[in-house]
């Protein structure tokens, strides 16, 4: 009844979608929330954003990029197999309100994570301008679904293989220079992308929310690994976040904390590659 993978799909190079049975989470999940999974008895606890949910069938979707040992391992699972543990939904849901025009930005695998927010802001009566960006065309995901849910969709790639050559921030800057008032910018993606977006909107005085991918362990408000300085105060992403006011986030600290296990991650990846060979 629970935790069974019912669909596995490769969306792009090294990016996969898994649809898994998790009826309680499918019922309770709200935009901006995440889950923690543990693949098997020896696995680590991995936080993943809920990319979509299907309350009727009791399933949720997660989209992830093969980056470290656990995501490599997760990518080796097939439909019909089970994930040992799934906990969620976690984190404080996104604060959705009507603000007029909302610009939602997704970068890399963060594109998958903005979909629930786009739908929620749209149904709250906002005009949705969505900007997605990736290194190249092969890494763009969910484009048609996002296009359908948005009023406007802009695409950028670093190499120009799809959409405009350049970065999401280029299009954001142009929109800001235009006449239309922007009520909110909502950005999810790699830390450098979120930081650039934040700097751009800070100068323009536009409220901006980012969803942070901090380290997580129990993710239930206990261990404190997800802490991050926001507005000079220590906040905990699993309780107070994962969404924060971008202009108050200490991105340099976030980068440092995310790099804590860099050396260990290599070792773990080698171990997993030997196992799943």
């Amino acid at each position, binding site marked *: 009844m629970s935790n069974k993978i019912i669909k596995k799909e490769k969306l792009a190079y090294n990016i996969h979608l898994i649809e898994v049975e998790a009826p*309680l*989470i499918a019922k*309770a999940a709200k935009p901006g929330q995440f889950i923690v999974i*543990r693949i098997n008895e*020896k*696995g*680590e*606890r991995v936080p993943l954003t809920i990319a979509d949910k299907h309350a009727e069938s009791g399933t949720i979707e997660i989209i992830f990029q093969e980056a470290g*040992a*656990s995501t490599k*391992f997760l990518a080796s699972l097939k439909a019909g197999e089970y994930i*040992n*543990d*799934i*906990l*969620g*939904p*976690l984190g404080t849901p996104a604060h959705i309100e009507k603000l007029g025009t909302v610009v939602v930005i997704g970068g890399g695998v963060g594109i998958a994570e903005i979909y629930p927010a786009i739908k929620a802001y749209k149904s709250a009566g906002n005009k949705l301008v969505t900007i997605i960006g990736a290194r190249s065309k092969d890494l763009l995901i969910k484009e048609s679904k996002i296009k359908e849910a948005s009023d406007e969709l802009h695409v950028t790639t670093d190499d120009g293989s799809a959409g405009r050559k350049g970065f999401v921030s280029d299009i954001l800057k142009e929109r800001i220079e235009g006449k239309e008032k922007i009520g909110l910018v909502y950005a999810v993606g790699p830390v450098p992308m979120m930081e650039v977006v934040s700097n751009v909107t800070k100068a323009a005085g536009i409220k901006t929310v980012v969803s942070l991918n901090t380290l997580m*362990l*129990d993710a*239930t*408000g*206990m*261990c*404190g*690994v997800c*802490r*991050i*300085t926001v507005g000079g105060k*220590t906040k*905990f992403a699993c*309780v107070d976040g994962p969404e924060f006011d971008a202009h108050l986030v200490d991105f*340099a*600290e976030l*980068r*440092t*904390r995310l*790099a*804590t*296990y860099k050396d*260990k*991650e290599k*070792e*773990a990846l*080698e*171990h*997993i590659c030997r196992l799943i060979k």
Partner: protein
Amino acid sequence: MSADKIDRHLMPERPANDRIKDFEEVAQGFSFEEAVAEAKRCIQCKNPKCVGGCPVEIDIPGFLKYLAAGDIEGAIKKIKEKNSLPAVCGRVCPQEDQCEKVCILGIKGKPVAIGALERFAADWERETKKLAGKPVSQLASEKIETGTRAYGHTGTRVAVVGSGPAGLTCAGDLARMGYKVTMFESLHLPGGVLSYGIPEFRLPKEIVKLEVEFVKSLGVELVCNALIGRTLTIEELFKQGYKAIFIGSGAGLPNQLGVPGENSQGVYFANEFLFRVNMMKAYKFPEYLTPVLMGKRVAVFGAGNVAMDAARCALRLGADKVSILYRRSRTEIPARQEEIIRAEEEGIEFTLLVAPTEIIADDKGRVKQVELLKMELGEPDASGRRRPVPVAGSEFKLDVDMVIVAIGNSPNPLIPKATPELKTEKWGGVIINNETATSIPGVFAGGDIVRGAATVISAMGDGKAAAKAIDNYLM
């Protein structure tokens, strides 16, 4: 020779230089002969003070009488009338502040080793039943008489939130009263602090597992990976048909030093560090995929049992030097005497009367030093302990590559946050009346969620009191 003239027997321990190489248990337990001889030291007081010293009111002279006669089965049955987790309590209870503190033999000599004997009886039962291939369900268990409708309420459903010491005790007692209990655990394994917090070398996880199995064998259903407040709310639990709810959701976010640099790379809060090591078995990385940093020069702030556990884990992970840094003096150290001595034997250094002013990181954001300020003791504060006062201009620096902050935690914030009707103290503790009832009818609470950070046994006492209160409420 009268009984009180025989010296208290000491539990054998592995030598320090041997035990720091692994995570295997330190204390080794009594032999049958030692246990019987130690149990015979009990003079069977007519008005036993020890029972009053036990938060779960074990009939201590009762079980010692069986043990003294060599009847271990009788002893463990007597213990389990009141305590579902004897193998745990025999290991981690601060007996020196409870039952053994008030033992009459302690006035002139040394008290009976009650904790070690409780452990002996529980270990004997587990080992012999295991050897005989018997299931856990055949371990000793006694039904508990309830108020007026003894066993007439089979099928009344009660939800227990959290499977730590408070939850396990409450669930076990309710099941023995005949209630149909579901215990919800947010983590992937049950046991709460017994699983994520207390290290293997002090409390083997196999023992925790079997104690949980025992509680399940009483009829308690365990649901892991269910975070009440997020996966399901308190309101939804009532809608699902639970007639009463016990909240034992335990510890929450860590207390912070509040000095610059606390979020640098290499600074752990004790719960994170211990969770990685104990729950996730990071000491077996990469076979187990959860990583943990292995500092060479480790500073631990705080001097409670959690600080001792963290320091001794860091040592076992390969640290060259581990220092406990504490702002008061030796007399005020809150950890159990036994744990302080074991830590010292293992080579943990105690730097007393110092407080941090800053954690200093290198250009990559990794911790490289702590700046400390010397303290001296002034007048007693609200806790009755002498207040540490900074010595002006006494700052000095210590080179370290890992810091563990072990200065306590607040109650877990999630259920109060998700349940606005649930009244809490300003510092986050759930408010209960003297019968464990919260501000919501039918909702009871106990353990760290009420007390902040407390002991395993006080949480168990709360769980026991809550089971009685829930029985009264449902009558």
